[in-house]
């Protein structure tokens, strides 16, 4: 039992420090850097879920694991979907000039939105 927590703690700490060093000293740049810290965070999340929250170590009908995975799916849809929609909205609005934007907003208001 103690072993699990020590492994979880030490590896989490190492992963955190690694991510911190990458950013602080700009070891990579741009998208690569973002990708690297993203991957490090996901690894750490899995480590903590396994060693701290003991997910995946229960007996056969893995109800908790299934619940977690289902929640994760919903989460992905909500967060990913929102970002996608909002980004697209920004993108569509970007094509308009300010006057066009005003006109569009006013026409939407007149429709009652």
């Amino acid at each position, binding site marked *: 039992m103690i072993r699990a927590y020590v492994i979880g703690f030490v590896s989490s700490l190492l992963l*955190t420090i690694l991510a*911190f060093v990458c950013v602080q000293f700009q070891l990579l740049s741009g998208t690569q850097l*973002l990708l690297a*810290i*993203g991957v490090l*965070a996901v690894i750490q999340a899995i480590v903590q879920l396994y060693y*701290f929250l003991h997910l995946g170590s229960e007996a056969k009908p893995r109800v908790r694991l299934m619940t977690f995975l289902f*929640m994760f799916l919903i989460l992905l849809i909500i967060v990913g979907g929102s*970002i996608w929609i*909002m980004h697209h909205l920004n993108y569509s609005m970007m094509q308009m000039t300010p006057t066009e934007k005003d006109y569009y907003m006013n026409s939407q208001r007149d429709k009652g939105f």
Partner: protein
Amino acid sequence: MTDCMLFASLFAVYAVSQTATANLPGPKDLFELPLVMLETGLLLLSSFTCGLALVMASRGKINHLLGFLVATFILGIAFLFVELHEFRTLISEGYDWSASAFLSSFFVLVGTHGLHIFIGLLWLLVLIVLLLRKGLSEKLQHKLKLFSLFWHFLDLVWIFIFTIVYLGGVAI
């Protein structure tokens, strides 16, 4: 699970309004990474001591259990203290939550996490008092288990705040 949804929506809000800084300094200029690294270390360590407390509870070693619970409590307080210090510095420099959409979403996301930590600390205090007054019963063991779930979950959320808000904000 519901808490996950709450944080997920706040993350989505943050991701959308991250760039809406209203011509004020963005994440890159405002955040102090070493300070945030300290917060991360404190929270990670408290998660660790909380786990050890649970092990001691299952072994019935009350003194060790008490020690680890108190350590968790102190580390949690230290985390909150550093976070409040960070908030105060930002606000005193004029970057409060009404300054821009980015700052609003930042304060809401990180503040909600801080509030959870605060509530977790109250919960922990109650557990410590219960342990002192009534000893380690089967019921209390279960309560400790539930608390540790909550606490580890908050640590997990913090990793994503640390990565997405702080590291991601500085990296761009």
